[in-house]
């Protein structure tokens, strides 16, 4: 088990670092594998709230994405990912103010990379609806770049925005999305 986990750490860390250098394909694999680990982790932690698991997986992926600049190349991945997953889990519990759920043990022995579950259930929250509520200067760059896969240059041309405004729009839009989900916008 130990070896399997440290192999996961090594592989995912290399994928994240490639992703942070701009390699979209590596980053895609990283997020995909991470979502399976989050799913298994949250399923075991949210026994009484099974319908919230997939929403929390997406919310935590968004947190990893938005906060990836806090990951430094000299740092191990497991504690970083674990701290984010744990933070989002506690945040959900607090929002639910579900005292019963809080009694489920949250110990550090349960590691995020201990298990993986590729079988996604449906998310209840539709991210598309939330994206529609963003202001245009954030919504349009996200739609063209993130949903339709256009480049920065093509998105700038399609929207009439500058290239830096497109990048800022995507960045701020995903931050606003996280704030809307967390109910602290």
């Amino acid at each position, binding site marked *: 088990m130990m070896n399997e986990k440290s192999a996961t750490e090594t592989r995912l860390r290399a994928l994240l670092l490639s992703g942070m250098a701009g390699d979209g394909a590596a980053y895609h694999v990283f997020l995909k594998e991470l979502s399976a680990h989050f799913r298994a982790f949250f399923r075991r932690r949210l026994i009484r709230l099974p319908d919230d698991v997939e929403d929390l997986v997406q919310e935590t992926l968004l947190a990893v994405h938005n906060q990836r600049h806090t990951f*430094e190349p000299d740092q191990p991945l497991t504690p970083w990912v674990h701290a984010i997953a744990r933070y989002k889990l506690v945040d959900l519990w607090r929002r639910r103010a579900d005292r019963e759920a809080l009694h489920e043990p949250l110990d550090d022995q349960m590691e995020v990379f201990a298990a993986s579950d590729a079988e996604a259930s449906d998310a209840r929250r539709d991210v598309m609806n939330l994206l529609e509520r963003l202001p245009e200067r954030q919504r349009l760059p996200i739609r063209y770049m993130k949903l339709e896969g256009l480049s920065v240059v093509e998105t700038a041309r399609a929207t009439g925005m500058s290239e830096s405004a497109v990048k800022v729009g995507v960045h701020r839009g995903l931050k606003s999305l996280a704030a809307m989900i967390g109910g602290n916008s």
Partner: protein
Amino acid sequence: MKTDDFVNLLANGIEPVKSGATARRHALALGWGGLGAMLLMATLLGVRADLAAAMRLPMFWVKLLFPICIALAALFAAMRLARPGVALGRAPLALLVAPVIGIWAMAAYALVSVSPEQRLTLLLGRTWTVCPLLIVMLSLPTFAGAFWAMKGLAPTRPALAGAAAGLLAGAVATAVYALHCPEMTSPFLATWYLLGMALPTAAGALLGTRLLRW
């Protein structure tokens, strides 16, 4: 939206991310906050007229180094608390406690060295009523800067992260205030300088839980 589609959305069109964001943001917060405090001190309070003479006295350097040590401890703590999965460790606490114990020891020695009727004068000086409040006022620029820095990072312990940001602001403000302040006794520093730093720290802890969510 299915999670696979959401992963596609996040991974599409990503830009390279530079490392060192935590250090960059804190350098900016400290630079602008320190500059703001200097400007406030110079324009509203004024540098003490006898600064050149005071600089020849060891107590002046104690007065300056005491908050600078605490600022370093706070900066160290803030930069660790800003990143998920990075343990706070004992080093920042040791760096914080050492100067406090040092100044308390100096203060205790100074107080027992004088006659009982002189002790109150040593403790209160002439400016004890304004000192903590002026430090709080000078802490505002760094307070805003340190919260901006922390808000753009990922503190998983928001109250503690807010406290570290507040302590950083209070300590920078105190070091700047020392260039104005005429008091030269260790009992005064051990009480009122410390209170001046504690107030922004408490405010930071309270605001942290509200403002530092992500």
